């Protein structure tokens, strides 16, 4: 994302017609109307923070995916596909699908049975207040900062793509999110995320369809890409045997163990931003089905994100360059590929829908951040540590005010980033420090009954500190990357993979050692929290095609087939 913003060249990529502007205005009117309509259904804390726990599997699943499907993700990964080829797909397939299925089948029952309101809430039940405090404070702080960083990033993109004033973009989008989340709480955020999911697909799907038509089909597209770049741009795995034989400078162990086994597991199973959507499901079957539905659609996202980047490689008459070069030469950067493809194929009306898709993607991500922040602040910081005797109405009001304050802090962060761009690098790095160790703590808590409160706390703390230590080491001495990522040929992305892997291992080792050295928690206190001591409720007497396990198997088969087809 930093790369996405490095350029400050005020070039306007597309121009909107009146009908395009009408489509954008209609979108804002609709999301505000939904928030207003749902205002009457957000009177209790269960309604406001958990959407009444009445979401169907489809609504929870699409919202779960949509909260992650931000505009910067769409544009950033389309740019990565142009830069690195089909390798970027790993972040959608092995970097998401196994984790989503693991969440559905292994972890979700514990989240759901414990009736926790949040991931830090689960840590409190399993490991005690100290682990919850560490997790909640870091999550709340980083979420609201990340929201601000994304806000500035989106405003910058709107300036570059549409020529819109940065202040206008920041205030219009943030106030809209603030209004509809404050009015309707999580239910409003979820409803709008599902709407945004459809708009993203409606606005972006035409690009790969027309692009493949122009390129003459997939086979011709691959030939054209190979001619303009190299054969490795269209292979997922065959070039990953060495750091030097693929455009990304990464080894398959980094992709499988760093990305697939740690980073994606950490993000999709413990980041409350996405997990909160599943906790709002109406029953255990819906809670298990939701991530599986999300996984099914996640596998298709490369069609609207990666494929446009690859098509850009083949059909665009200009060669896109890194941001640093574009900033000097005035040319287009890798990250401009999606707007360029939008402008290439989409005339009046379609362009408005495409731009609306980008705005919708941004707002769904921001609403996700704000609603998750509000819940963690109210349930895991304010109620246990500041005021534990408030009425239900009091906590709902606290939630509404926290939403407004969270948005204002985000806006403040956005303006801070505008003044000091380097803050963005630090905020993103800080956020990544917590993900991998948190997964280690939560998964050990769920699967190993011997894990104790001190073990969980010290494991989480040491894992996080080790991640910060590695990041600082490479920042001070870039050549240290050869030690962190195990090869002198490793590039930047490899650092994230191996840094996550090592910090996860540190977390697990420290948790195990400290747990074995401390007094075990009695089994009776772990009922409903740990595998082996919890009776997992059956999904009911339903036919095979309604069982989560069946659909997880279907998704897994398609996942393996896709990896083999594009090997």
């Amino acid at each position, binding site marked *: 994302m930093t790369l996405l913003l490095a350029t400050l060249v005020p070039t306007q990529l597309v121009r909107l017609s009146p009908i395009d502007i009408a489509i954008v205005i209609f*979108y804002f009117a609709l999301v505000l109307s939904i928030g207003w309509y749902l205002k009457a259904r957000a009177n209790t804390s269960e309604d406001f923070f958990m959407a009444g726990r009445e979401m169907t599997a489809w609504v929870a699943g699409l919202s779960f995916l949509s909260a992650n499907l931000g505009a910067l993700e769409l544009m950033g990964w389309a740019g990565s596909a142009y830069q690195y080829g089909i390798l970027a797909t790993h972040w959608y397939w092995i970097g998401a699908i196994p984790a989503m299925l693991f969440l559905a089948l292994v972890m979700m029952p514990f989240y759901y049975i414990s009736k926790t309101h949040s991931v830090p809430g689960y840590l409190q039940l399993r490991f005690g207040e100290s682990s919850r405090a560490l997790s909640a404070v870091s999550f709340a702080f980083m979420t609201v900062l990340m929201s601000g960083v994304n806000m500035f990033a989106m405003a910058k993109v709107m300036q570059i793509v549409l020529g819109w004033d940065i202040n206008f973009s920041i205030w219009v989008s943030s106030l809209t999110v603030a209004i509809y989340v404050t009015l309707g709480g999580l239910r409003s955020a979820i409803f709008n995320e599902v*709407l945004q999911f459809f*708009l993203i697909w*409606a606005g972006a799907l035409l690009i790969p369809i*027309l692009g493949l038509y122009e390129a003459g089909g997939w086979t011709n597209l691959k030939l054209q890409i190979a001619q303009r770049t190299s054969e490795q741009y269209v292979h997922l795995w065959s070039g990953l045997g060495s750091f030097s034989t693929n455009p990304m400078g990464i080894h398959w162990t980094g992709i499988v163990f760093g990305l697939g086994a740690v980073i994606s597991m950490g993000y999709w199973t413990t980041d409350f931003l996405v997990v909160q959507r599943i906790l709002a499901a109406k029953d255990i079957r819906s809670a298990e089905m939701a991530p599986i539905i999300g996984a099914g659609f996640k596998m298709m996202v490369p069609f609207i994100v990666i494929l446009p980047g690859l098509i850009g490689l083949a059909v665009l008459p200009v060669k896109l360059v890194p941001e640093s070069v574009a900033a000097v030469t005035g040319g287009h950067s890798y990250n401009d590929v999606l707007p360029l493809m939008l402008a*290439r194929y989409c*005339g009046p009306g379609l362009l*408005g829908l495409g731009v609306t898709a980008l705005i919708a993607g941004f707002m769904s991500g921001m609403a996700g951040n704000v609603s998750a922040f509000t819940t963690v602040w109210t349930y895991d910081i304010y109620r246990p540590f500041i005021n534990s005797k408030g009425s239900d109405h009091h906590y709902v009001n606290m939630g509404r005010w926290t939403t407004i304050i969270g948005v204002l802090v985000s806006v403040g962060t956005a303006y801070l980033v505008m003044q000091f761009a380097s803050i963005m690098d630090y905020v993103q790095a800080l956020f990544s420090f917590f993900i991998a160790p948190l997964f280690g703590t939560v998964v050990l808590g769920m699967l190993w009954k011997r894990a104790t409160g001190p073990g969980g706390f010290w494991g989480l703390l040491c894992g996080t500190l080790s991640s910060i230590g590695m990041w600082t080491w490479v920042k001070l001495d870039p050549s240290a990357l050869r030690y962190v990522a195990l090869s002198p040929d490793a590039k930047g992305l490899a650092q994230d993979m191996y840094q996550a892997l090592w910090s996860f291992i540190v977390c697990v080792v420290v948790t195990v050692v400290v747990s074995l050295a401390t007094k075990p928690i009695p089994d009776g206190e772990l009922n409903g929290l740990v595998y082996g001591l919890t009776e997992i409720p059956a999904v009911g007497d339903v036919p095979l095609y309604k069982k989560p396990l069946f659909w997880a198997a279907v998704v897994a088969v398609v996942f393996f087939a896709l990896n083999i087809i594009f090997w």
Partner: protein
Amino acid sequence: MISIWFFIGISLAVNGALILAAGIYELVSPPVNPGVVLFHLHANVWWGAALLVFGLIYCFKFAPKRQS
């Protein structure tokens, strides 16, 4: 409560109608310089029509009266 799918139906139907209208206008009054590749496919006509039909189906199927 009004179903979320009804709101989605409204969104797709209105967007589809606007895009279809823009496409038909371009069809009967083609611009001198279309500005887009594959203009001859008139994507806004069939894509707008598809969104409109899809949206109307959702509006009808999940209309508040039918749900209640």
